[in-house]
């Protein structure tokens, strides 16, 4: 019996357009679309892509419940044995959509699901335990390997074959531990590991510690009327012409700009260079992303004492977590030095 597969992709890979089509409503088509062509070739006669479900990333992100329900209906109508989503690489909204549609389809339809994402994609932390995520590169340069991984793992899952350890399957760990008998006892393994470590050789723990990206919340501001508030944004709003050449995506730098003489960001003075959303609105009025105008108004009304003289800004799309954390540390240190009491950080 041939395995029936449904493929989920976004508007971009369906050839419908980029950000201007990001609000595309869920639709389904018979057979393959876009990267499904290559996937079909990889499946050969072992599985058939019976249909493709397409949804705009913006729509999925902003209307998650409606998008999910509609996509599940479209997927279910094909009566699939397997759902394959993406690959979503390091695209944040697409990765979340792939993870979410897989997790929910697995639950609602009782079928195995697989997607392929870059390990830092936010979809990974949210959904890696609820679906199977093949490790993908951060961009479509890794398309071939990602599709091969999804095809291989997908066939295995659909056949009900047991999965091996994530590092051997090329998937992201689901945090599942399976018991097995080892030929050496714990003491022998621990000593062997220690010797490897001393010798500078690679060694692998048998019990990985979880990574928590949590910090205790900072204490609240006691008197807002005396507070200095800073604006920070990852929405890509920069002075016209992008003087510091902040990258449109995968940023490795941020900018610090004096707004002490500005009451309003206008299209003549500021613009968005963010490569991950439709910039039409932000270009008409950058305040819809980085709200200098109303902050200035609230400052004048005395709601808070002072709007800090500088804004910090970067583009948060495909940005490596390590870079984003460094931006945060550096900006935080500078704001502390400047005596700022609180921050509003806007993201797109």
């Amino acid at each position, binding site marked *: 019996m041939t395995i029936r597969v449904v493929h989920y992709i976004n508007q971009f890979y369906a050839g419908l357009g980029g950000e201007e089509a990001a609000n595309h409503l869920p639709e389904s088509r018979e057979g393959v679309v876009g990267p499904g062509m290559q996937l079909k070739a990889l499946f050969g006669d072992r599985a058939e892509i019976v249909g493709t479900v397409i949804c705009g990333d913006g729509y999925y992100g902003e209307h998650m419940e409606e998008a999910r329900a509609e996509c599940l209906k479209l997927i279910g109508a094909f009566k699939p044995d397997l759902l394959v989503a993406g690959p979503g690489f390091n695209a944040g909204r697409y990765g979340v959509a792939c993870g979410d549609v897989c997790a929910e389809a697995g639950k609602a339809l009782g079928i195995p699901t697989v997607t392929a994402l870059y390990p830092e994609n936010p979809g990974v932390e949210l959904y890696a335990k609820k679906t199977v995520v093949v490790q993908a590169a951060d961009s479509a340069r890794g398309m071939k390997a990602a599709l091969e991984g999804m095809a291989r793992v997908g066939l295995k899952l659909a056949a009900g074959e047991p999965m091996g350890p994530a590092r051997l399957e090329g998937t992201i760990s689901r945090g599942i531990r399976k018991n097995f008998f080892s030929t050496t006892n714990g003491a022998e393994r621990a000593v062997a590991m220690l010797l490897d470590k001393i010798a500078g050789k690679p060694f692998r723990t048998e019990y990985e510690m979880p990574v928590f990206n949590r*910090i205790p919340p900072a204490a609240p501001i006691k008197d807002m009327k005396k507070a200095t508030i800073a604006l920070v944004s990852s929405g890509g709003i920069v002075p016209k012409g992008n003087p510091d050449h902040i990258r449109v995506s995968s940023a490795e730098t941020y900018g610090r700009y004096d707004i002490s003489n500005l009451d309003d960001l206008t299209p003549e003075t500021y613009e968005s260079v963010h490569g991950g959303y439709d910039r039409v609105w932000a270009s008409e009025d950058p305040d819809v992303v980085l*709200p200098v105008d109303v902050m200035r108004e609230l400052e004048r009304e005395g709601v808070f004492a002072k709007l800090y003289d500088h804004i910090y800004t970067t583009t948060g799309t495909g940005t490596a977590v390590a870079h984003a954390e460094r931006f945060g540390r550096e900006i935080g240190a500078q704001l*502390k030095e400047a005596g700022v009491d609180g921050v509003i950080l806007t993201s797109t």
Partner: protein
Amino acid sequence: MTREIEKAAGIPVVQIATIVPIMLTVGSNRIVPGVAIPHPVGEPAKGPEADRKARRELLLRALGAMTTQIDEQTIFEGK
């Protein structure tokens, strides 16, 4: 970025963005859900007045979040 600024400066950082699960994942403590991905703090399609009103409401809510004692990640929804 939100989390590291808060950690480095020791001051409350309120994040306004649209996809709440991502803000929870990256460890933001004070979260205000934004309007839409391309315009988190505005309603530009509804005209200048409604746009400014929406922005004002969100910023006042963010300032309110900064003065609120919290013990864990908190989403500050509108009324």
